[in-house]
């Protein structure tokens, strides 16, 4: 019995099991051949010229597999709603933190805010030209808000603007998808002009940059909301402990 207590048998068994699984899986995966068929991706690369988008990943994300992105945005939206449902209560009012915020931090963070948002916007807008895009840029924008919260815990976000951004961008995305149905008879069809000669320019690729901008706004506002909830939660706990 004493042996059982000192030796974590479960852990040992499980680690042996994991390693056995690992080894046999490795044996299997080493045989994986990656050149059985011409993959869809290669076909996409060939087709990519038609979309007039310099970044093939972007065109796959927003156009070829566009409905995936709608779903993804929805998942993020649902997660935000879930977090909000869990962490917000109408009865609970956030007590203001007594701690005085530092002036330098305040000013410094605001200074940085605009730069970060600009950077995020840049990433979003150039999503179809360079690595990056709506998600990445959106998250960068959300970090700007995180910085604000870190510098000034008393800060409140303007929820109505965030909600507006969220709802409008989301609806706009769906609308773009539906307009495609009417214009080019295909949901999420590329109904804006996208001449191949324009490839590499900022305004090129038809709806692709539009979608990425929409996604950027949506992700940015949603991530900001999530960040806010978690930060506020943290502060509340501190108050309870104090």
């Amino acid at each position, binding site marked *: 019995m004493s042996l059982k207590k000192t030796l974590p048998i479960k852990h040992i068994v499980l680690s042996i099991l*994991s390693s056995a699984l690992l080894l046999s899986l490795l044996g299997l995966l080493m045989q994986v051949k990656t050149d059985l068929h011409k993959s*869809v991706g290669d076909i996409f*690369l060939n087709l990519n010229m038609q979309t007039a988008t310099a970044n093939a990943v972007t065109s796959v994300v927003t156009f070829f*597999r566009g409905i995936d992105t709608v779903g993804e945005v929805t998942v993020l939206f649902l997660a935000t709603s879930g977090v909000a449902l*869990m*962490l917000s209560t109408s009865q609970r009012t956030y007590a203001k933190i007594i701690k005085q915020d530092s002036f330098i931090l305040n000013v410094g963070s605001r200074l940085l805010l605009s730069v970060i948002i600009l950077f995020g916007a840049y990433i979003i807008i150039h999503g179809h030209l360079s690595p990056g895009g709506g998600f990445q840029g959106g998250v960068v924008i959300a970090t700007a808000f995180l910085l604000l919260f870190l510098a000034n815990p008393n800060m409140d976000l303007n929820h109505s603007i965030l909600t507006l951004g969220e709802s409008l961008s989301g609806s706009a995305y769906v609308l773009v998808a539906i307009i495609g149905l009417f214009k080019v008879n295909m949901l999420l069809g590329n109904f804006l002009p996208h001449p191949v000669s324009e*490839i590499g320019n900022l305004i090129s690729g038809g709806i692709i940059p539009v979608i990425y901008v929409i996604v950027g706004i949506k992700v940015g506002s949603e991530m900001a909301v999530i960040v806010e909830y978690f930060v506020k939660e943290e502060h509340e706990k501190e108050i309870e402990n104090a």
Partner: protein
Amino acid sequence: MLDFFNSTQSIHAIIIVGSMALFFIGFYGIATQKNLVKVLVSFDIMESALFLFFIGLHYKVGLVAPIVDDKTKTFTGMVDPVPQAMILTTIVIGLAILALGLSFGIEYYKLTGRNDISKMNELRD
């Protein structure tokens, strides 16, 4: 020696070994850890291992990122963009689930003061 590492085959082998090792660290984690946050982190480790695995196996020596610039005018000699797009999507989903899980955990902790998943046993007959 360096040539050896510069072949597609050996890069793939390294990626498989590395990512699977990471995967089973996560596997071991979810099997043994009882702290909710650690379990969620283990899931993320497993997911990251899968991302590495997937992206890594689609890299072949000599291919470049699928973006045209002034030098490359056509989409040839580039890596497959689909795995990247899929991984991008999966990352966001993983993030969403993580956020949701953490918010559940926070609420649960507030109510009960516990975060040990093996001790969550209010739901029983």
